[in-house]
């Protein structure tokens, strides 16, 4: 007898429909799974067999073929277990699910309990798009699936409940949608922890206000990592759309806990990361750190220690806001609009050349710093030079809190959105939009003078204008004044000659 069940498999950060067809007929007892299953799917046979028996069902000793359609799509992960076993039960006449358009996803334990799987949010969204009425998910994933409106969510704790469900003996509880805390989250570490460091605070505020990428240079222990980790707390809250996207990516990566999304993501990959790890890769292509940092902050500590090809791989994604990962036969576009924050020591020993203790050879320092002006650095707008805070500053009063800074950042972003359109920031201004920025006369003179003295390249000229626009937005000014150009000139990343 033949039976089918609807399920989904993850592909990048979205889900693709898979129809499970199970045929049970006479022959030598065998159980085969066809249709490009990966190792985890193939092993589903053993889990399904044990789960069925341990839940009191009968495992038919006949020839069983499970086909996963479409046959050309590679199926990955253990999420197909539930659908295979339900189709098998139906095909062997042990179960009769009346409802037609019901999707199911979940991994089975040997005792028949249903284990959570990654990517349920994306799967539930795909199910709604395919006009499924309901989706059966593992109980732990219920809150996540409930985020999708217009889809009934059935939470399953054990395979045995399927029979009760089919018989109408059991009314599954309705899960509450998880909270999407779109506010920056009071739980995040607060900027008040950063004591002293006024310049760094100021640079952080400007970078956050305009979405500018930023490079911090300073000795170890001066507070670079601390400052970077506080950045999400001063960024404006996520829009509903963004929050869903963040949740979807977290879910695919298996990082979406029961408590939901709290604020913008902060990712800090180690410098030994590979290009595929950073921008995404594998076959089928999965998201990398850049995608995980979508709508949040990607922090590259020890920028000079990263492999050159890894950093090069980040260039196009930074420009486009998405990354295209191509593997043999497949091509995926993954979103990655993040704020790049990088940190570096000023020289290999970390003390800085002006420190008498610095033992680095001048050539080694030059070679080290040359990496700071590589291709990726071209995309970095703000430079913050950091020094060790003094004893008084460390022991001094706490700095301004994140909430206060965030208010100013939000106001500046609102001004940008009213000028550029929803969701856009100054850092993303095109060359034409940069030219449209209104400059006061004195400001134009200062910029022209700096440019003429060859202290600025053409690209740096536009970078200064973008930064100055952000500084003006923070100050609540419609036009860019002398003061704002001066501040932008000081904040900008320097080019080497």
């Amino acid at each position: 007898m033949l039976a089918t069940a609807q399920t989904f498999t993850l592909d990048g950060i979205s889900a693709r429909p898979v129809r499970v067809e199970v045929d049970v007929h006479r022959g030598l007892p065998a159980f085969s799974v066809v249709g490009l299953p990966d190792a985890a799917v193939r092993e589903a046979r053993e889990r399904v067999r044990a789960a069925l028996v341990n839940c009191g069902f009968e495992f038919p000793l006949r020839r069983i073929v499970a086909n996963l359609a479409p046959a050309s799509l590679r199926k990955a992960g253990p999420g197909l277990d539930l659908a295979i076993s339900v189709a098998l039960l139906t095909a062997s006449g042990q179960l009769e699910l009346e409802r037609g358009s019901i999707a199911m996803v979940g991994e089975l334990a040997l005792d028949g309990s249903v284990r959570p799987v990654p990517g349920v949010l994306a799967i539930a969204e795909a199910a709604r798009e395919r006009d499924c009425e309901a989706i059966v998910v593992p109980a732990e994933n219920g809150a996540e699936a409930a985020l999708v409106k217009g889809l009934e969510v059935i939470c399953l704790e054990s395979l045995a409940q399927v029979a009760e469900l089919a018989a109408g003996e059991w009314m599954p509880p309705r899960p509450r949608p998880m909270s999407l805390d779109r506010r920056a989250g009071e739980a995040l570490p607060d900027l008040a922890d950063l004591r002293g460091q006024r310049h760094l605070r100021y640079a952080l505020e400007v970078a956050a206000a305009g979405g500018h990428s930023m490079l911090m240079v300073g000795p170890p222990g001066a507070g670079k990592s601390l400052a970077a980790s506080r950045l999400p707390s001063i960024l404006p809250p996520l829009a509903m759309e963004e929050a869903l996207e963040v949740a979807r990516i977290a879910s695919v990566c298996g990082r979406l806990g029961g408590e939901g999304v709290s604020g913008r993501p902060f990712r800090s990959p180690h410098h030994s990361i590979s290009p595929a790890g950073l921008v995404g890769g594998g076959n089928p292509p999965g998201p990398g750190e850049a995608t995980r940092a979508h709508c949040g902050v990607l922090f590259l500590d020890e920028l000079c220690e990263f492999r050159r090809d890894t950093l090069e791989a980040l260039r196009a994604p930074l420009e486009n806001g998405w990354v295209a990962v191509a593997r043999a036969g497949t091509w995926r576009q993954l979103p990655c609009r993040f704020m790049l924050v990088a940190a570096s020591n000023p020289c290999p020993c970390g003390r800085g050349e002006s420190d008498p203790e610095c033992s680095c050879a001048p050539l080694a320092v030059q070679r080290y710093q040359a990496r700071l002006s590589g291709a990726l650095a071209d995309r970095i707008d703000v430079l913050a030079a950091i020094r060790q805070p003094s004893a008084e500053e460390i022991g001094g009063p706490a700095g301004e809190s994140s909430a206060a800074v965030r208010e100013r950042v939000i106001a500046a972003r609102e001004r940008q959105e009213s000028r550029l359109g929803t969701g856009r920031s100054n850092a993303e201004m095109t060359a034409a939009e940069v030219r449209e920025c209104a400059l006061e006369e004195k400001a134009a003179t200062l910029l022209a003078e700096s440019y003429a003295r060859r202290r600025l390249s053409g690209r740096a000229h536009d970078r200064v204008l973008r930064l100055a626009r952000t500084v003006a937005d923070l100050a609540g000014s419609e036009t860019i004044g002398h003061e704002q150009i001066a501040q932008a000139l000081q904040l900008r990343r320097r080019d080497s000659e």
Partner: protein
Amino acid sequence: MSAPNACLDCLRRARLLAHLAPYIEKIASAAPGSRSPELLRLSNEDLAAAAAPQIAAQVLGEVGAAPERRLRADLLAARCWACCWHDPAFPPGLYDAADAPWALIGRGDPGLLGRLEPQETVTIVGARRASAYGREMARELARELAAAGLLVISGLAFGVDACAHRGALDADTTVAVLGCGADIAYPASHRSLWRRICERGLVLSELPPGTGAWRWTFPARNRIMAALAGMTVVVEAAQRSGSLITADLAADLGRDLGAVPGPVNSRASAGTNDLLAGGACLIRDGQDVLDAMLGPGVRRAERVGADLDARLREVLAVLERGAETSDAISAALDLDGAEAASALATLEALGYVSCSLVGVYSRTLLSAPAI
């Protein structure tokens, strides 16, 4: 001024040097530590016989038969021109050297040849592995001297040389003397600097276009740099540094010799401190160079910058006391980040301070006007 010119003999001499370069290399490397090769003062025949006795006749024959049209076409193709010592435009300083090149191949503005009078020209050399101090001093010194009307010569090498060129280009123009053909950017990573000098200054070499660099060509170009300038200033040099060769050559020619002092415990400055101990002029800024070359007080270096208000003076004073990052400045003066940023940017635009790649500020030699 008419275009510079070179006679056929001198062009052939340059071509001969290029032909013999590998053989001269062998002799020069057999006697390490030597200064510019003694061979260069020999006549064509003696040079060929000394450098490559076996093939001397053949090389001389080949070079002697090189058609003039070809030699000149090669120059044109490399966008170069030549000036030989028979030409009135030939830099007069070179006549003082017994082993002066017969011809200079140039790329860039030939009009600058007229400015290559020794009393108006200064050569700045120093370590390739220069410290931040050495690079900053080279740049500042060159900027000041160029602004005061002197022509700054250097060798396009890493470190001090490149910074001297950049500083001079900031204010005016500069001359680079290369140890390879003038159409070759060496070292290659200085290509953009080389291009800027070709556009706005002058690149010189005694070798024909297309000739690569050899070890012996660097001390050889040092003798040209030393002879061209009225004064040679060594910015930073360790003991046994190549820049000391240039200093020796300059002293032998009776040119002025100056050195920028460095910390006495720094090995990178041991060579320059030795020069000072041996009687070289102490160079602290451009004014010291001008005083040594032209006589005390004859010409003032352009050293006073634009007027500063009280706030900017305060910031400048803090910088002079040793604060280096904008953070340190805002802490010292209790300014907020934005105020410190705009003060520093203004000072940088006015030329009082410069900022490194990693955001460390340093004071330039420009002094503020008296209140």
